């Protein structure tokens, strides 16, 4: 049995980077304020002191060049980790991500590889308003060639990041700004979390709830309330959004026959739609009710905290969704 200790999500991220950099000299980190400052969310704290400015590189504010340089370095024998401070700023780097990183291997007939990790932070609920709060994962999952992971616990934040760095493809690790301070048990010993494997967070008979990132934690507390009312919800954290672990999801639905999907992306075009349509593809005959989605309203994220809370999924929305799906 591993010795574990409680550490924060941000410490888990920093540990993962430090371990991978120590293990493999080809790994390095670059991004805005990741070095001396230790990252906008302190997720690379201590790394600059440990590895120096050559391997922990502060960059100018040039998102496209940061990611594109990551592609060039990855094509030529390095294994870069690049950071886009807020996921919203990914818009500035979209060509380098979508047209370069994701496509190079295929366009070159397989005769190249891009072992690039792109870390970024997303999520509303912090009064950051419309340009610093978005859940843009559905922009990414539609791009063949990318792998997309979204950890909700310190354990997964560390283990998935380590897998990402070791993966020979561009992997986007979407961390959650609101979770950096959260703590959880993380083994002292070396481990990785495999890409493409969902986690069943809680077993249950009545409803399968699939929830991503912070929504998974929100769902967990809602589920305890439902349990008191006699509704037994199984909670699945996909952890990897692309490729999605449909096997775990389908197994659960075969048991519960009812599904609620919770994701912070917008109602229209958000990641909840992708999960629900995959369920239609794979599990239609197992369903006793339509898939109920809990997603953000189709409006930009407002600044005012009361308004913001109204836009993004809240516990009451999750409770209502479960009641709705149980009514069938």
């Amino acid at each position, binding site marked *: 049995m591993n010795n574990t200790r409680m550490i924060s999500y941000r410490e888990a991220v920093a540990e993962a980077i430090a371990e991978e950099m120590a293990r493999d000299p080809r790994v390095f980190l670059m991004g805005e304020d990741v070095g001396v400052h230790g990252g906008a969310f302190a997720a690379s704290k201590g790394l600059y002191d440990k590895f120096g400015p050559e391997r922990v590189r502060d960059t100018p504010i040039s998102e496209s*060049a940061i990611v594109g340089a990551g592609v060039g370095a990855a094509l030529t024998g390095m294994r870069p980790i690049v950071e886009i401070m807020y996921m919203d700023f990914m818009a500035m780097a979209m060509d380098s991500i979508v047209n370069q990183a994701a496509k190079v291997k295929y366009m070159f007939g397989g005769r190249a590889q891009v072992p690039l990790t792109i870390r970024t932070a997303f999520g509303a609920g912090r009064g950051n308003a419309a340009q610093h709060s978005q859940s843009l994962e559905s922009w990414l999952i539609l791009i063949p060639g990318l792998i997309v992971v979204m950890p909700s616990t310190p354990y997964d934040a560390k283990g998935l990041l380590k897998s990402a760095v070791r993966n020979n493809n561009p992997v986007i690790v979407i961390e959650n700004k609101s979770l950096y301070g959260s703590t959880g048990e993380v083994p002292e010993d070396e481990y990785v979390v495999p890409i493409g494997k969902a986690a069943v967070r809680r077993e249950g008979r009545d409803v399968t709830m699939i929830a991503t990132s912070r929504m998974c934690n929100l769902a967990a507390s809602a589920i305890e309330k439902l349990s008191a009312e006699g509704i037994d919800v199984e909670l699945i954290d996909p952890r990897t959004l692309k490729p999605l672990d449909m096997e775990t999801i389908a197994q659960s639905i075969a048991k519960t026959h009812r599904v609620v999907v919770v994701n912070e992306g917008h109602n229209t075009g958000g990641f909840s739609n992708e999960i629900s349509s995959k369920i239609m593809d794979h599990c239609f005959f197992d369903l006793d009710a339509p898939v109920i989605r809990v997603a953000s309203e189709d409006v930009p994220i407002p600044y005012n905290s009361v308004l913001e809370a109204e836009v993004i999924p809240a516990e009451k929305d999750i409770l209502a969704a479960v009641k709705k799906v149980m009514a069938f």
Partner: protein
Amino acid sequence: MNRQMDAELLIDHFQTMLRIRFHEEAIKKLFAQGKIGGSTHLCIGQEAIAVGVIGLLKKEDYIVSTHRGHGHMLAKGGQLKPMLAEILGKNDGYCKGKGGSMHIASIELGNLGANGIVSGGLPIAVGSALSARMRKTDQITVVFFGDGASNEGNTHESMNLASLWKLPVLFLFENNHYAVSTEISRSMAGSMAKRAAGYDIPFTEVDGNDVEAVHFAAEEVIDHVRSGNGPFVMQCNTYRMEGHYFGDAMVYRTSAEVEEWRKKDPILHVEQLFRERSILTADEIASLRAGIQAEVDDAVAFAENSSQPALDSIFSDVYSEWQ
């Protein structure tokens, strides 16, 4: 008196330029025959730049190319057969028919890829230069970009970063005066010289249709870059002799202008030097031409006979194997 290139090297460069020219002419013909399904951009008239610059690189050096990149690839050691097979979308192509003209690449040859995105390659070049430095090699990266690309944000982000980090990048500005229909005076404020100065990058400008001028300028520039002094911007002025795409009516320029540039054809210029310096006779030139034409004809036949990729190949090469 201008410096003169060694006769043998000049003959060598001449042959590479011919190879590029005849390759492009072959594509024109294949296009007219309806055998090319996709888009290709020809570099006829710009051969001296690719050959003059890349001719000075080591095998391990990198180039990052553009949508008009056939010449770059052939100068970096690209072979005619897989080039033409790729352009015909065939299995034996450099990219197994999945990339086509705009994505020809060979990591082995140090070509990190043509690019369908104007300016898409500049950040990649910063990365390969950074990688070379981190791996402690003396590899340099030459990134080609056009007058059109010079106005993209990527170009500025990349010049800034390369200068800031003193990376071994040669920014090779191929000014062929047009971006599709837009003449440079209608797209570029200031000048590349001033832009380079703004980023504290040394700059030089040469006649891109004169392979000797390109060669000697590039020699100094490459030496600077390889010696760890940081990036350099080299502007080569040239002209795109063909339309932007096959069938371009070219309403945006006069035929008089095109004819003026035809007189400055970089290949005819070398032939002129051969005569002036009594390096090759007309017969010898003709026989060199015939030899290269035969190579290209052979490659066209190879490409036409290459098989179609298998249908299920659409699913391979999306991802690398996971460790």
